[in-house]
């Protein structure tokens, strides 16, 4: 009999799935929401317990799903990194749902609101499985669940734009899954294993003996390609602005904040547990990721600069922020990956904050989303205005906020890198300036006096913040500040978790 906390990852995943299955027969959006929030609270608490248990002993454990251990049966693996990310995912998902609550009930037809929460629960289950899995094929199955659920929450708003955006998203995602599956087949062919520990051993043996180098290179390339299409790395980002810009507030927040990160965490886990960071570096794949990440940081910001639509601008800024993560991974050293994981957490708090705030701000101007018509919106909904200001400043990289710490650690990592130092620092500087160039005017616009939405025939109205919005903005905002001020314990947990991987 193992200690009870070791059962938690498996119970969390099944709780989320069963919550989704139960929700599908409720026919009531309100009850579906309650079940989702309860499940999120329970899972969040369980993750916190798990984080405490693993971080305090600085240990990890593998959990066989059934009687059969590692090379035969499915397995989960949990350590401080996984537990911490699970906790972050739960908090962010709950806050995004609360912050977008009003929009969910306005945008989605009453008869189908319960189905929206089914998707949310399943999305949570798949994110948790992708975090905890120790089996690469389980990873594939849950990538598919994640894809379908993510497409469903985009299309839930059910207007013309979201349907078109969903189609594009679906085609690109399925292409990505196909490439991942083919690389998995190659991996199985040359090693005969699917569980990460055994895969790691076999791959290491192959590296030492020099056998199968060509298939290995090809399969790493395909795997990275597949996952980077799904996580919208720069040249493959074309589906992202439509999907994230047109869907309902909570969906945008969750897609940007969590769904993209799920794939990247899986990629980092594969890099660490199947290969090792030095083997990946010797395959030169990190160099490609570095270049694409740097390009994404700049091109995403340039695109955002040209965008007059508030949600699309924030969505393009996600492309840039994903670039930061890949830049960190692309440095090919421990410090870079620590910075990348920190950025995953920081962005998971900041981007939902921005989306939730933009959603609330635009509701003061009759849901008009163009910046031009949002003049003075911050004065009409002060809480959302403050939230947007905080998030925007964090993206620019003002000290004491989460974004600054990311940049600090990335810069620190870059100084240790082999050849990337100058390029990384330049990309960071340019990207920060570009971020400021579009976030600062937006902040000025929402705090200016007067309003412009009358030109559209819309009366500006004051939005009194409802409790759900208050909780959401407060928690996310405090998260952004805490990550910016007391970042040392977080970084400590991340490095400990990565060292255990």
């Amino acid at each position, binding site marked *: 009999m193992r200690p009870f906390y070791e059962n938690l990852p498996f119970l969390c995943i099944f709780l989320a799935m069963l919550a989704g299955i139960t929700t599908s027969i409720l026919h009531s959006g309100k009850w579906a929401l309650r079940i989702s929030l309860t499940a999120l609270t329970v899972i969040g608490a369980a993750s916190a317990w798990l984080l405490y248990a693993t971080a305090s002993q600085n240990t990890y454990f593998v959990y066989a799903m059934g009687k059969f251990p590692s090379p035969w049966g499915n397995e989960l693996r949990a350590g401080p990194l996984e537990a911490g990310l699970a906790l972050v995912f739960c908090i962010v998902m709950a806050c995004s749902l609360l912050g977008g609550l009003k929009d969910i009930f306005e945008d989605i037809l009453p008869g189908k609101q319960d189905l929206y929460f089914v998707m949310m629960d399943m999305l949570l289950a798949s994110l948790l499985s992708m975090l905890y899995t120790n089996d690469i094929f389980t990873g594939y199955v849950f990538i598919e669940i994640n894809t379908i659920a993510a497409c469903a929450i985009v299309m839930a708003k059910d207007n013309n734009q979201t349907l078109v955006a969903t189609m594009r998203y679906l085609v690109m995602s*399925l292409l990505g899954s196909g490439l991942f599956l*083919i690389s998995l087949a190659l991996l199985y062919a040359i090693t005969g294993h699917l569980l990460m520990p055994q895969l790691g051993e076999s791959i290491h043996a192959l590296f030492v003996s020099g056998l199968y180098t060509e298939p290995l290179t090809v399969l790493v390339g395909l795997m990275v390609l597949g996952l980077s299409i799904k996580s919208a790395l720069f040249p493959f980002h074309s589906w992202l602005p439509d999907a994230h810009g047109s869907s309902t507030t909570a969906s945008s927040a969750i897609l940007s904040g969590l769904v993209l990160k799920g794939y990247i965490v899986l990629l980092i886990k594969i890099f660490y547990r199947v290969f090792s960071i030095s083997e990946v570096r010797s395959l030169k794949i990190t160099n490609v990721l570095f270049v694409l990440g740097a390009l994404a940081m700049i091109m995403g910001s340039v695109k955002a600069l040209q965008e007059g639509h508030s949600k699309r601008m924030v969505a393009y800024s996600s492309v840039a922020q994903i670039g930061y993560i890949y830049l960190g991974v692309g440095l090919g050293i421990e410090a870079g990956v620590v910075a990348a994981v920190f950025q995953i957490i920081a962005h998971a708090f900041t981007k939902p904050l921005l989306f939730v705030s933009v959603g609330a701000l635009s509701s003061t101007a009759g849901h008009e989303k163009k910046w031009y018509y949002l003049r003075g919106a911050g004065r009409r909904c002060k809480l959302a205005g403050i939230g947007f200001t905080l998030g925007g400043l964090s993206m620019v990289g003002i000290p004491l906020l989460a974004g600054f710490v990311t940049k600090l650690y990335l810069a620190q990592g870059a100084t240790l890198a082999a050849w990337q130092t100058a390029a990384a620092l330049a990309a960071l500087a340019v990207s920060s300036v570009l971020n400021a160039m579009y976030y600062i005017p937006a902040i000025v616009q929402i705090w200016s006096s007067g309003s412009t939405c009358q030109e559209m025939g819309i009366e500006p109205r004051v939005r009194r913040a409802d409790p759900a919005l208050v909780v959401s903005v407060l928690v996310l905002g405090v998260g952004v500040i805490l990550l910016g001020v007391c970042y040392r314990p977080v970084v400590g947990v991340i490095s400990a978790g990565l060292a255990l991987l």
Partner: protein
Amino acid sequence: MSNAIATWSGDYYQVFAIILFGIGFISLLLHKNLIKKIIGLNIMDSSVYLFLTSFGYIDGRVAPIVADPTAPVQMETYINPLPTGLVLTGIVVGVSVTAFSLALTQRLYKKYHTLNLDEILILAKREEV
């Protein structure tokens, strides 16, 4: 070169799987018609499954279904059952995805009266303005 051809003719299942993958991939890229895109996707999926299954096959062995469970089971009698199991999972995922994308196609058609993705994108953009 002759070496390569010899290897290819030995691994003909994999070679054909990859050719099919190429065909599926290109019809996904080039076709504008949504139904044909979905069929291309299905062909691509099938080819990946064929590729994966071919790694489980071993010459001269039979399907992993034991006729006489009382006798001891020899590994040398049966092919590798694992890829078959994985592909079984894959096929069900494939049909789910097909149903989803076809439902989406129906809705898009009802809105825009065309199946051409380019035209749909343009019409959507025009609406936005």
